[in-house]
Protein backbone atom coordinates (compact mmCIF):
# COMPACT_ATOMS: atom_id res chain seq x y z
CA UNK A 1 0.00 0.00 0.00
CA UNK A 2 1.18 3.47 -0.71
CA UNK A 3 0.94 5.50 2.47
CA UNK A 4 2.88 8.51 1.44
CA UNK A 5 2.88 10.04 -2.04
CA UNK A 6 5.56 12.28 -3.56
CA UNK A 7 3.23 15.25 -3.03
CA UNK A 8 2.76 14.28 0.61
CA UNK A 9 6.53 14.21 1.11
CA UNK A 10 6.88 17.64 -0.51
CA UNK A 11 4.15 18.99 1.74
CA UNK A 12 5.58 17.53 4.97
CA UNK A 13 9.08 18.70 4.00
CA UNK A 14 7.67 22.19 3.57
CA UNK A 15 6.11 21.97 7.04
CA UNK A 16 9.55 20.96 8.36
CA UNK A 17 11.14 23.84 6.43
CA UNK A 18 13.35 21.68 4.25
CA UNK A 19 13.33 22.88 0.64
CA UNK A 20 13.93 19.58 -1.14
CA UNK A 21 15.13 19.61 -4.72
CA UNK A 22 13.21 17.61 -7.35
CA UNK A 23 15.99 15.01 -7.39
CA UNK A 24 15.82 14.66 -3.60
CA UNK A 25 12.05 14.27 -3.74
CA UNK A 26 12.48 11.50 -6.31
CA UNK A 27 14.97 9.73 -4.07
CA UNK A 28 13.36 10.21 -0.66
CA UNK A 29 9.68 9.76 -1.52
CA UNK A 30 9.92 6.05 -2.35
CA UNK A 31 12.08 5.34 0.71
CA UNK A 32 9.74 7.22 3.03
CA UNK A 33 6.69 5.46 1.67
CA UNK A 34 8.36 2.12 2.39
CA UNK A 35 9.40 3.23 5.91
CA UNK A 36 5.95 4.57 6.77
CA UNK A 37 4.42 1.28 5.64
CA UNK A 38 6.86 -0.60 7.84
CA UNK A 39 6.45 1.49 11.02
CA UNK A 40 2.67 1.15 10.55
CA UNK A 41 2.98 -2.38 11.95
CA UNK A 42 2.66 -0.85 15.43
CA UNK A 43 -1.06 -0.91 14.63
CA UNK A 44 -1.02 -4.72 14.63
CA UNK A 45 -0.77 -4.53 18.42
CA UNK A 46 -4.07 -4.44 20.29
CA UNK A 47 -3.39 -1.62 22.72
CA UNK A 48 -6.63 0.33 23.04
CA UNK A 49 -6.55 0.11 26.84
CA UNK A 50 -2.76 0.54 27.22
CA UNK A 51 -1.59 3.91 28.56
CA UNK A 52 1.04 5.65 26.41
CA UNK A 53 4.61 6.10 27.66
CA UNK A 54 6.20 9.39 26.71
CA UNK A 55 9.21 8.98 28.92
CA UNK A 56 11.05 6.15 30.72
CA UNK A 57 11.20 7.87 34.11
CA UNK A 58 8.15 8.60 36.25
CA UNK A 59 8.94 12.31 36.42
CA UNK A 60 6.84 15.21 37.47
CA UNK A 61 7.91 18.78 36.85
CA UNK A 62 11.40 19.54 38.08
CA UNK A 63 11.92 23.15 39.03
CA UNK A 64 14.67 25.23 40.56
CA UNK A 65 14.41 28.28 42.77
CA UNK A 66 13.55 31.38 40.76
CA UNK A 67 16.87 33.10 41.27
CA UNK A 68 19.02 35.07 38.88
CA UNK A 69 22.11 33.13 37.81
CA UNK A 70 25.05 34.07 35.61
CA UNK A 71 24.38 33.56 31.92
CA UNK A 72 26.20 34.01 28.63
CA UNK A 73 27.59 37.44 27.86
CA UNK A 74 26.13 39.10 24.76
CA UNK A 75 29.36 38.54 22.79
CA UNK A 76 29.31 34.83 23.65
CA UNK A 77 25.67 34.45 22.68
CA UNK A 78 26.22 36.25 19.37
CA UNK A 79 29.61 34.72 18.59
CA UNK A 80 28.18 32.09 16.25
CA UNK A 81 25.38 34.18 14.77
CA UNK A 82 25.26 34.14 10.96
CA UNK A 83 24.65 37.89 11.23
CA UNK A 84 24.46 40.24 14.21
CA UNK A 85 23.63 43.89 14.53
CA UNK A 86 23.33 46.21 17.55
CA UNK A 87 23.76 43.32 20.02
CA UNK A 88 20.98 41.36 18.34
CA UNK A 89 20.60 38.45 15.94
CA UNK A 90 20.03 39.87 12.47
CA UNK A 91 17.55 37.79 10.46
CA UNK A 92 16.16 37.87 6.93
CA UNK A 93 12.89 39.71 6.34
CA UNK A 94 9.83 38.09 7.92
CA UNK A 95 7.13 39.86 5.89
CA UNK A 96 6.64 40.46 2.20
CA UNK A 97 8.26 43.66 1.03
CA UNK A 98 5.14 45.26 -0.39
Amino acid at each position, binding site marked *: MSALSRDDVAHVAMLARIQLSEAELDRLAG*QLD*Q*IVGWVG*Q*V*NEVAAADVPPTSHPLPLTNVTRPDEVRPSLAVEQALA*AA*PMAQEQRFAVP*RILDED
Partner: protein
Amino acid sequence: MTDLTRLTAARMAEGLAAGDFTSEALTQAHLDRIERLNPVLNAYLQVDTEGALATARAVDAARAAGESLPRLAGVPVAVKDIACTVGIPTTAGSRMLEGWVPPYDATIVTRLKEARMPILGKTNMDEFAMGSSTEHSAYGPTRNPWDLERIPGGSGGGSSAAVAAYLAPLAIGSDTGGSIRQPAAVTGTVGTKPTYGGVSRYGVIALASSLDQIGPCARTVADAALLHEVVAGHDPMDSTSIDAPVPPVLEASATRDLTGLRVGVVREISGEGFQAGVLARFEEAVEELKALGAEVVEVSCPHFRYAMAAYYLILPSEASSNLARYDAMRYGLRVGPDGVDSPSAEQVMGASRDAGFGDEVKRRIILGTYALSSGYYDAYYGQAQKVRTLIARDFEAAFSQADVLVSPTAPTTAFRIGDQTEDPMTMYLNDIATIPANLAGVPGLSLPVGVADEDGLPVGLQVLAPATEDQRLYAVAAALEERLHTAWGGPVLDRAPTVESQEVPA
Protein backbone atom coordinates in the same frame (compact mmCIF):
# COMPACT_ATOMS: atom_id res chain seq x y z
CA MET B 1 59.87 1.20 27.13
CA THR B 2 56.50 -0.42 26.47
CA ASP B 3 53.98 1.27 24.20
CA LEU B 4 51.98 3.33 26.68
CA THR B 5 48.92 3.45 24.43
CA ARG B 6 48.45 -0.31 24.87
CA LEU B 7 47.87 -0.12 28.61
CA THR B 8 44.42 -0.20 30.13
CA ALA B 9 43.17 3.07 31.59
CA ALA B 10 43.41 1.51 35.05
CA ARG B 11 47.09 0.66 34.47
CA MET B 12 47.73 4.14 33.07
CA ALA B 13 46.30 5.64 36.24
CA GLU B 14 48.49 3.37 38.39
CA GLY B 15 51.57 4.17 36.34
CA LEU B 16 50.95 7.90 36.63
CA ALA B 17 50.39 7.66 40.38
CA ALA B 18 53.55 5.58 40.80
CA GLY B 19 55.59 8.03 38.71
CA ASP B 20 56.46 5.40 36.07
CA PHE B 21 55.65 7.91 33.33
CA THR B 22 54.16 11.38 33.04
CA SER B 23 50.79 12.39 31.72
CA GLU B 24 52.60 14.48 29.14
CA ALA B 25 54.40 11.41 27.79
CA LEU B 26 51.20 9.37 27.87
CA THR B 27 49.18 12.09 26.14
CA GLN B 28 51.92 12.72 23.58
CA ALA B 29 52.06 8.99 22.79
CA HIS B 30 48.37 9.11 21.91
CA LEU B 31 48.70 12.33 19.93
CA ASP B 32 51.57 10.81 17.92
CA ARG B 33 49.50 7.77 17.16
CA ILE B 34 46.52 9.93 16.19
CA GLU B 35 48.70 11.97 13.86
CA ARG B 36 49.95 8.80 12.19
CA LEU B 37 46.74 6.78 11.96
CA ASN B 38 43.83 9.21 12.00
CA PRO B 39 44.31 10.12 8.32
CA VAL B 40 43.44 6.47 7.61
CA LEU B 41 40.82 5.80 10.29
CA ASN B 42 39.07 9.20 10.42
CA ALA B 43 38.09 8.49 14.03
CA TYR B 44 38.68 12.08 15.17
CA LEU B 45 37.10 15.15 13.59
CA GLN B 46 39.09 17.51 15.82
CA VAL B 47 42.31 16.94 17.73
CA ASP B 48 43.07 19.35 20.56
CA THR B 49 46.82 18.88 20.81
CA GLU B 50 47.53 22.04 22.78
CA GLY B 51 44.61 21.67 25.16
CA ALA B 52 45.37 18.03 25.91
CA LEU B 53 49.04 18.70 26.53
CA ALA B 54 48.28 21.71 28.73
CA THR B 55 46.02 19.58 30.95
CA ALA B 56 48.64 16.82 31.03
CA ARG B 57 51.43 19.18 32.07
CA ALA B 58 49.25 20.74 34.75
CA VAL B 59 48.50 17.27 36.15
CA ASP B 60 52.21 16.38 36.12
CA ALA B 61 53.05 19.60 37.94
CA ALA B 62 50.31 19.05 40.51
CA ARG B 63 51.47 15.50 41.10
CA ALA B 64 55.08 16.62 41.47
CA ALA B 65 53.88 19.18 44.03
CA GLY B 66 52.27 16.40 46.03
CA GLU B 67 48.68 17.42 45.34
CA SER B 68 46.05 14.78 45.81
CA LEU B 69 44.48 14.06 42.44
CA PRO B 70 41.41 12.24 41.11
CA ARG B 71 42.07 8.63 40.12
CA LEU B 72 42.03 9.19 36.35
CA ALA B 73 43.94 12.50 36.47
CA GLY B 74 46.27 12.59 33.50
CA VAL B 75 44.61 9.69 31.64
CA PRO B 76 43.52 10.98 28.21
CA VAL B 77 40.00 10.65 26.88
CA ALA B 78 38.16 11.25 23.60
CA VAL B 79 34.73 12.85 23.40
CA LYS B 80 32.07 12.13 20.80
CA ASP B 81 31.41 15.25 18.74
CA ILE B 82 27.89 15.43 20.15
CA ALA B 83 28.99 17.01 23.47
CA CYS B 84 29.65 20.74 23.64
CA THR B 85 33.25 21.74 24.31
CA VAL B 86 34.29 25.35 24.81
CA GLY B 87 37.06 26.20 22.37
CA ILE B 88 36.77 23.00 20.32
CA PRO B 89 34.40 22.94 17.33
CA THR B 90 31.36 20.73 17.87
CA THR B 91 29.53 19.58 14.77
CA ALA B 92 27.55 16.41 15.59
CA GLY B 93 28.90 15.17 12.25
CA SER B 94 26.80 17.72 10.36
CA ARG B 95 27.50 20.44 7.80
CA MET B 96 24.85 22.42 9.67
CA LEU B 97 27.30 22.99 12.54
CA GLU B 98 30.57 23.07 10.61
CA GLY B 99 33.06 25.17 12.57
CA TRP B 100 30.61 25.90 15.38
CA VAL B 101 32.39 26.53 18.68
CA PRO B 102 30.02 26.16 21.64
CA PRO B 103 29.88 28.93 24.25
CA TYR B 104 29.61 26.42 27.12
CA ASP B 105 30.72 22.91 28.12
CA ALA B 106 28.43 19.93 28.47
CA THR B 107 28.24 18.77 32.09
CA ILE B 108 30.06 15.56 31.17
CA VAL B 109 32.89 17.64 29.70
CA THR B 110 33.03 19.69 32.90
CA ARG B 111 33.28 16.42 34.83
CA LEU B 112 36.12 15.17 32.63
CA LYS B 113 37.90 18.46 33.27
CA GLU B 114 37.27 18.20 37.03
CA ALA B 115 38.70 14.68 36.86
CA ARG B 116 41.67 16.35 35.15
CA MET B 117 41.62 14.10 32.13
CA PRO B 118 43.31 15.51 28.99
CA ILE B 119 40.72 15.70 26.19
CA LEU B 120 42.40 14.45 23.01
CA GLY B 121 39.69 15.60 20.65
CA LYS B 122 36.23 15.03 19.23
CA THR B 123 35.24 11.78 17.58
CA ASN B 124 33.37 11.18 14.36
CA MET B 125 29.74 10.09 14.30
CA ASP B 126 26.74 9.66 12.06
CA GLU B 127 25.15 13.06 11.51
CA PHE B 128 23.19 14.02 14.65
CA ALA B 129 23.73 10.41 15.80
CA MET B 130 21.40 9.00 13.15
CA GLY B 131 22.91 5.78 11.88
CA SER B 132 24.61 2.52 12.70
CA SER B 133 27.79 2.80 10.66
CA THR B 134 29.24 6.34 10.87
CA GLU B 135 28.80 6.50 7.09
CA HIS B 136 26.24 9.27 7.55
CA SER B 137 28.87 11.68 8.89
CA ALA B 138 29.18 14.77 6.72
CA TYR B 139 32.95 14.44 7.23
CA GLY B 140 33.41 10.98 5.74
CA PRO B 141 33.15 7.50 7.25
CA THR B 142 35.31 6.18 10.06
CA ARG B 143 37.06 2.90 9.29
CA ASN B 144 37.05 -0.17 11.51
CA PRO B 145 40.61 -0.91 12.71
CA TRP B 146 39.91 -4.65 12.32
CA ASP B 147 39.33 -4.22 8.59
CA LEU B 148 39.62 -0.82 6.97
CA GLU B 149 36.93 -1.67 4.42
CA ARG B 150 34.37 -2.17 7.16
CA ILE B 151 32.24 0.08 9.36
CA PRO B 152 33.10 0.66 13.04
CA GLY B 153 29.41 0.76 14.00
CA GLY B 154 27.41 3.85 14.68
CA SER B 155 26.53 6.37 15.49
CA GLY B 156 29.58 6.38 17.77
CA GLY B 157 32.01 4.79 15.31
CA GLY B 158 34.65 7.44 15.93
CA SER B 159 34.77 6.63 19.64
CA SER B 160 34.75 2.85 19.13
CA ALA B 161 37.46 2.99 16.45
CA ALA B 162 39.61 5.36 18.53
CA VAL B 163 39.48 3.03 21.53
CA ALA B 164 39.98 -0.15 19.46
CA ALA B 165 42.96 1.34 17.59
CA TYR B 166 44.64 2.67 20.77
CA LEU B 167 44.06 6.28 19.74
CA ALA B 168 42.45 6.76 23.18
CA PRO B 169 42.11 4.51 26.22
CA LEU B 170 38.64 5.83 26.96
CA ALA B 171 35.95 7.68 25.07
CA ILE B 172 32.54 9.20 25.64
CA GLY B 173 29.65 7.90 23.57
CA SER B 174 25.93 8.54 23.32
CA ASP B 175 23.32 5.82 22.88
CA THR B 176 19.80 6.53 21.61
CA GLY B 177 19.15 3.11 20.07
CA GLY B 178 22.49 1.33 20.41
CA SER B 179 25.09 3.91 19.37
CA ILE B 180 27.49 2.94 22.17
CA ARG B 181 26.80 -0.79 22.35
CA GLN B 182 26.70 -1.73 18.65
CA PRO B 183 29.98 0.10 17.82
CA ALA B 184 31.56 -1.65 20.83
CA ALA B 185 30.35 -5.03 19.52
CA VAL B 186 31.75 -4.60 16.01
CA THR B 187 35.14 -3.29 17.17
CA GLY B 188 35.86 -5.74 20.01
CA THR B 189 35.51 -3.10 22.72
CA VAL B 190 33.30 -2.45 25.75
CA GLY B 191 30.51 0.14 25.85
CA THR B 192 27.78 0.98 28.32
CA LYS B 193 24.46 2.75 27.99
CA PRO B 194 23.63 3.66 31.61
CA THR B 195 20.09 3.84 32.97
CA TYR B 196 18.18 6.70 31.35
CA GLY B 197 18.89 9.76 33.51
CA GLY B 198 22.04 8.24 35.00
CA VAL B 199 24.35 10.65 33.18
CA SER B 200 23.59 14.30 32.48
CA ARG B 201 22.54 15.27 28.96
CA TYR B 202 23.11 18.99 29.56
CA GLY B 203 25.14 20.39 26.69
CA VAL B 204 24.78 17.22 24.63
CA ILE B 205 23.23 17.86 21.23
CA ALA B 206 19.77 16.32 21.45
CA LEU B 207 18.57 13.60 19.09
CA ALA B 208 15.57 12.03 20.88
CA SER B 209 15.33 13.37 24.38
CA SER B 210 13.40 10.47 25.93
CA LEU B 211 15.91 7.93 24.56
CA ASP B 212 19.34 9.64 24.56
CA GLN B 213 21.88 8.57 27.14
CA ILE B 214 25.59 9.27 27.53
CA GLY B 215 28.02 6.53 28.49
CA PRO B 216 31.59 5.19 28.49
CA CYS B 217 33.55 3.38 25.75
CA ALA B 218 36.64 1.41 26.81
CA ARG B 219 38.74 -1.68 26.16
CA THR B 220 37.93 -3.42 29.46
CA VAL B 221 34.92 -3.64 31.74
CA ALA B 222 36.83 -2.09 34.66
CA ASP B 223 37.96 0.84 32.49
CA ALA B 224 34.37 1.46 31.43
CA ALA B 225 33.36 1.46 35.10
CA LEU B 226 36.07 4.01 35.92
CA LEU B 227 34.80 6.42 33.27
CA HIS B 228 31.17 5.69 34.16
CA GLU B 229 31.84 6.87 37.72
CA VAL B 230 33.49 10.07 36.48
CA VAL B 231 30.58 11.18 34.30
CA ALA B 232 27.54 9.75 36.14
CA GLY B 233 25.48 11.38 38.85
CA HIS B 234 22.83 14.00 39.40
CA ASP B 235 23.01 17.29 37.51
CA PRO B 236 20.55 20.05 38.34
CA MET B 237 21.03 21.38 34.80
CA ASP B 238 19.28 18.29 33.35
CA SER B 239 15.71 17.94 34.58
CA THR B 240 15.70 14.23 33.66
CA SER B 241 18.82 13.50 35.68
CA ILE B 242 18.27 10.95 38.46
CA ASP B 243 18.78 12.47 41.91
CA ALA B 244 20.27 9.39 43.61
CA PRO B 245 23.73 7.97 44.28
CA VAL B 246 25.58 6.49 41.28
CA PRO B 247 25.24 2.69 41.21
CA PRO B 248 28.48 1.07 42.54
CA VAL B 249 29.74 0.06 39.10
CA LEU B 250 33.44 0.14 39.87
CA GLU B 251 33.08 -2.11 42.88
CA ALA B 252 30.96 -4.47 40.77
CA SER B 253 33.66 -4.64 38.10
CA ALA B 254 35.79 -6.70 40.53
CA THR B 255 33.18 -9.51 40.49
CA ARG B 256 34.59 -12.91 39.53
CA ASP B 257 31.85 -15.33 40.61
CA LEU B 258 28.21 -15.33 39.54
CA THR B 259 26.88 -18.03 41.86
CA GLY B 260 23.15 -17.69 42.34
CA LEU B 261 22.70 -15.02 39.67
CA ARG B 262 19.75 -15.59 37.35
CA VAL B 263 20.55 -14.81 33.70
CA GLY B 264 17.68 -14.59 31.21
CA VAL B 265 18.23 -15.30 27.51
CA VAL B 266 15.70 -13.24 25.56
CA ARG B 267 14.20 -15.57 22.97
CA GLU B 268 13.12 -12.78 20.63
CA ILE B 269 16.59 -11.24 20.20
CA SER B 270 18.92 -14.23 20.14
CA GLY B 271 18.02 -16.46 17.22
CA GLU B 272 16.43 -15.87 13.85
CA GLY B 273 18.10 -13.23 11.70
CA PHE B 274 21.42 -13.38 13.55
CA GLN B 275 24.66 -14.36 11.79
CA ALA B 276 25.80 -17.94 12.57
CA GLY B 277 29.17 -16.88 13.96
CA VAL B 278 27.49 -14.32 16.20
CA LEU B 279 25.12 -16.92 17.62
CA ALA B 280 27.93 -19.45 18.10
CA ARG B 281 30.01 -17.04 20.22
CA PHE B 282 26.89 -15.93 22.11
CA GLU B 283 25.91 -19.49 22.98
CA GLU B 284 29.44 -20.30 24.15
CA ALA B 285 29.42 -17.20 26.35
CA VAL B 286 26.13 -18.31 27.91
CA GLU B 287 27.81 -21.65 28.75
CA GLU B 288 30.65 -19.70 30.39
CA LEU B 289 28.11 -17.79 32.48
CA LYS B 290 26.78 -21.16 33.70
CA ALA B 291 30.33 -22.23 34.51
CA LEU B 292 30.66 -19.06 36.60
CA GLY B 293 27.71 -20.19 38.69
CA ALA B 294 24.85 -18.37 36.99
CA GLU B 295 21.50 -20.01 36.50
CA VAL B 296 20.37 -19.50 32.90
CA VAL B 297 16.68 -19.31 32.03
CA GLU B 298 14.90 -18.48 28.80
CA VAL B 299 12.58 -15.50 28.92
CA SER B 300 10.16 -14.15 26.36
CA CYS B 301 9.52 -10.50 25.54
CA PRO B 302 6.77 -10.83 22.91
CA HIS B 303 6.45 -7.12 22.13
CA PHE B 304 10.12 -6.69 21.25
CA ARG B 305 9.17 -7.58 17.66
CA TYR B 306 7.41 -4.22 17.49
CA ALA B 307 10.24 -2.30 19.16
CA MET B 308 11.92 -1.28 15.89
CA ALA B 309 8.71 0.10 14.42
CA ALA B 310 7.84 1.98 17.64
CA TYR B 311 11.39 3.33 17.82
CA TYR B 312 11.32 4.57 14.23
CA LEU B 313 8.22 6.58 15.09
CA ILE B 314 9.27 7.89 18.50
CA LEU B 315 12.83 8.83 17.53
CA PRO B 316 11.94 10.72 14.32
CA SER B 317 9.08 12.49 16.12
CA GLU B 318 11.35 13.74 18.89
CA ALA B 319 14.18 14.46 16.46
CA SER B 320 11.94 16.51 14.17
CA SER B 321 11.16 18.69 17.15
CA ASN B 322 14.73 18.86 18.52
CA LEU B 323 16.26 19.65 15.14
CA ALA B 324 13.81 22.49 14.53
CA ARG B 325 16.35 24.66 16.37
CA TYR B 326 18.65 24.56 13.32
CA ASP B 327 16.75 27.38 11.67
CA ALA B 328 19.70 29.45 10.36
CA MET B 329 18.85 32.35 12.65
CA ARG B 330 21.09 32.26 15.73
CA TYR B 331 23.87 29.82 14.88
CA GLY B 332 24.72 27.19 12.32
CA LEU B 333 24.61 27.31 8.54
CA ARG B 334 22.70 30.11 6.81
CA VAL B 335 22.35 30.07 3.02
CA GLY B 336 19.84 31.75 0.76
CA PRO B 337 17.86 30.02 -1.97
CA ASP B 338 19.29 30.24 -5.50
CA GLY B 339 17.99 33.04 -7.64
CA VAL B 340 16.02 34.90 -4.97
CA ASP B 341 17.11 38.50 -4.45
CA SER B 342 15.71 39.26 -1.05
CA PRO B 343 14.66 35.93 0.44
CA SER B 344 12.31 35.71 3.41
CA ALA B 345 13.32 34.07 6.69
CA GLU B 346 11.18 31.09 5.72
CA GLN B 347 12.96 30.69 2.39
CA VAL B 348 16.34 30.98 4.10
CA MET B 349 15.34 28.32 6.62
CA GLY B 350 14.20 25.96 3.89
CA ALA B 351 17.37 26.45 1.85
CA SER B 352 19.69 26.24 4.86
CA ARG B 353 18.10 23.06 6.18
CA ASP B 354 18.25 21.50 2.73
CA ALA B 355 21.94 22.38 2.38
CA GLY B 356 22.94 21.64 5.98
CA PHE B 357 21.27 18.28 6.58
CA GLY B 358 22.18 14.96 4.96
CA ASP B 359 19.71 12.44 3.57
CA GLU B 360 19.26 10.36 6.72
CA VAL B 361 18.52 13.44 8.81
CA LYS B 362 16.02 14.66 6.21
CA ARG B 363 14.33 11.26 6.10
CA ARG B 364 13.88 11.20 9.84
CA ILE B 365 12.72 14.81 10.20
CA ILE B 366 10.13 14.29 7.48
CA LEU B 367 9.02 10.95 8.95
CA GLY B 368 8.70 12.51 12.41
CA THR B 369 6.85 15.56 11.15
CA TYR B 370 4.45 13.22 9.36
CA ALA B 371 3.96 10.97 12.43
CA LEU B 372 3.10 13.99 14.56
CA SER B 373 0.83 15.67 12.04
CA SER B 374 -2.88 16.11 12.55
CA GLY B 375 -4.84 13.07 11.43
CA TYR B 376 -1.87 10.68 11.71
CA TYR B 377 -0.79 11.31 15.31
CA ASP B 378 -2.95 8.61 16.94
CA ALA B 379 -2.13 5.92 14.39
CA TYR B 380 1.61 6.53 14.48
CA TYR B 381 3.12 8.44 17.39
CA GLY B 382 0.29 7.70 19.83
CA GLN B 383 0.25 3.98 19.03
CA ALA B 384 4.06 3.81 19.25
CA GLN B 385 3.88 5.23 22.77
CA LYS B 386 1.48 2.47 23.75
CA VAL B 387 3.80 -0.15 22.30
CA ARG B 388 6.53 1.47 24.37
CA THR B 389 4.49 0.72 27.50
CA LEU B 390 4.11 -2.92 26.43
CA ILE B 391 7.86 -3.22 25.91
CA ALA B 392 8.51 -1.81 29.38
CA ARG B 393 6.03 -4.37 30.75
CA ASP B 394 7.88 -7.16 28.91
CA PHE B 395 11.06 -6.05 30.67
CA GLU B 396 9.29 -6.02 34.04
CA ALA B 397 8.04 -9.56 33.51
CA ALA B 398 11.47 -10.73 32.34
CA PHE B 399 13.22 -9.15 35.32
CA SER B 400 10.85 -10.99 37.66
CA GLN B 401 12.42 -14.21 36.35
CA ALA B 402 16.01 -13.07 35.90
CA ASP B 403 18.45 -10.60 37.50
CA VAL B 404 19.97 -9.68 34.13
CA LEU B 405 19.11 -10.43 30.51
CA VAL B 406 21.58 -11.28 27.75
CA SER B 407 21.55 -11.31 23.94
CA PRO B 408 23.98 -10.80 21.10
CA THR B 409 24.55 -7.03 20.83
CA ALA B 410 24.20 -6.84 17.06
CA PRO B 411 22.81 -9.33 14.53
CA THR B 412 25.99 -9.38 12.43
CA THR B 413 29.67 -8.56 12.62
CA ALA B 414 30.92 -5.34 10.97
CA PHE B 415 29.61 -5.01 7.43
CA ARG B 416 31.42 -3.40 4.50
CA ILE B 417 31.35 0.34 4.00
CA GLY B 418 28.72 1.09 1.37
CA ASP B 419 26.84 -2.21 1.74
CA GLN B 420 23.78 -0.81 3.50
CA THR B 421 23.68 2.85 2.49
CA GLU B 422 21.26 2.25 -0.39
CA ASP B 423 18.51 0.82 1.78
CA PRO B 424 17.83 2.77 4.99
CA MET B 425 15.69 0.00 6.47
CA THR B 426 18.43 -2.63 6.26
CA MET B 427 20.60 -0.23 8.24
CA TYR B 428 17.89 0.20 10.88
CA LEU B 429 17.86 -3.54 11.65
CA ASN B 430 21.39 -3.41 13.07
CA ASP B 431 19.91 -2.07 16.30
CA ILE B 432 17.24 -4.72 16.74
CA ALA B 433 18.75 -6.04 19.98
CA THR B 434 19.76 -2.71 21.48
CA ILE B 435 16.66 -0.55 20.91
CA PRO B 436 14.33 -2.14 23.51
CA ALA B 437 16.60 -0.92 26.33
CA ASN B 438 16.33 2.70 25.16
CA LEU B 439 12.55 2.51 24.90
CA ALA B 440 12.32 1.23 28.48
CA GLY B 441 15.19 3.31 29.87
CA VAL B 442 17.05 0.28 31.26
CA PRO B 443 20.86 0.06 31.22
CA GLY B 444 22.86 -2.13 28.83
CA LEU B 445 26.49 -3.03 28.25
CA SER B 446 28.27 -4.76 25.38
CA LEU B 447 31.49 -6.73 25.80
CA PRO B 448 33.50 -8.80 23.30
CA VAL B 449 32.95 -12.57 23.40
CA GLY B 450 35.30 -13.62 20.60
CA VAL B 451 35.38 -13.48 16.81
CA ALA B 452 33.00 -15.06 14.30
CA ASP B 453 34.38 -18.15 12.54
CA GLU B 454 33.26 -17.07 9.08
CA ASP B 455 34.98 -13.66 9.01
CA GLY B 456 37.28 -13.39 12.04
CA LEU B 457 35.53 -10.23 13.18
CA PRO B 458 34.53 -9.45 16.78
CA VAL B 459 31.20 -10.38 18.32
CA GLY B 460 29.56 -8.61 21.27
CA LEU B 461 27.31 -9.86 24.04
CA GLN B 462 24.80 -7.46 25.53
CA VAL B 463 23.86 -7.52 29.21
CA LEU B 464 20.69 -5.70 30.30
CA ALA B 465 19.61 -4.89 33.87
CA PRO B 466 16.64 -3.21 35.52
CA ALA B 467 16.69 0.60 35.73
CA THR B 468 19.25 1.99 38.22
CA GLU B 469 20.84 -1.47 38.66
CA ASP B 470 23.77 -0.61 36.37
CA GLN B 471 26.21 -2.38 38.68
CA ARG B 472 24.71 -5.74 37.66
CA LEU B 473 25.92 -5.14 34.10
CA TYR B 474 29.46 -4.68 35.33
CA ALA B 475 29.35 -7.68 37.66
CA VAL B 476 28.28 -10.06 34.90
CA ALA B 477 30.53 -8.51 32.26
CA ALA B 478 33.61 -8.43 34.52
CA ALA B 479 33.28 -12.06 35.57
CA LEU B 480 32.73 -13.18 31.98
CA GLU B 481 35.57 -11.02 30.66
CA GLU B 482 38.03 -12.41 33.20
CA ARG B 483 37.07 -15.98 32.32
CA LEU B 484 37.33 -15.37 28.56
CA HIS B 485 40.66 -13.52 28.84
CA THR B 486 42.06 -16.40 30.85
CA ALA B 487 40.86 -18.91 28.26
CA TRP B 488 42.15 -16.83 25.33
CA GLY B 489 45.37 -15.67 27.00
CA GLY B 490 44.42 -12.01 26.51
CA PRO B 491 41.73 -9.69 25.21
CA VAL B 492 40.09 -10.20 21.83
CA LEU B 493 41.67 -6.95 20.59
CA ASP B 494 45.04 -8.73 20.64
CA ARG B 495 43.79 -10.65 17.61
CA ALA B 496 43.09 -7.54 15.54
CA PRO B 497 45.56 -6.92 12.70
CA THR B 498 47.50 -3.70 13.13
CA VAL B 499 46.20 -0.73 11.19
CA GLU B 500 49.68 -0.25 9.71
CA SER B 501 49.67 -3.76 8.20
CA GLN B 502 46.51 -3.16 6.22
CA GLU B 503 46.23 -1.78 2.75
CA VAL B 504 44.45 1.56 2.77
CA PRO B 505 41.31 1.33 0.62
CA ALA B 506 41.06 3.82 -2.20
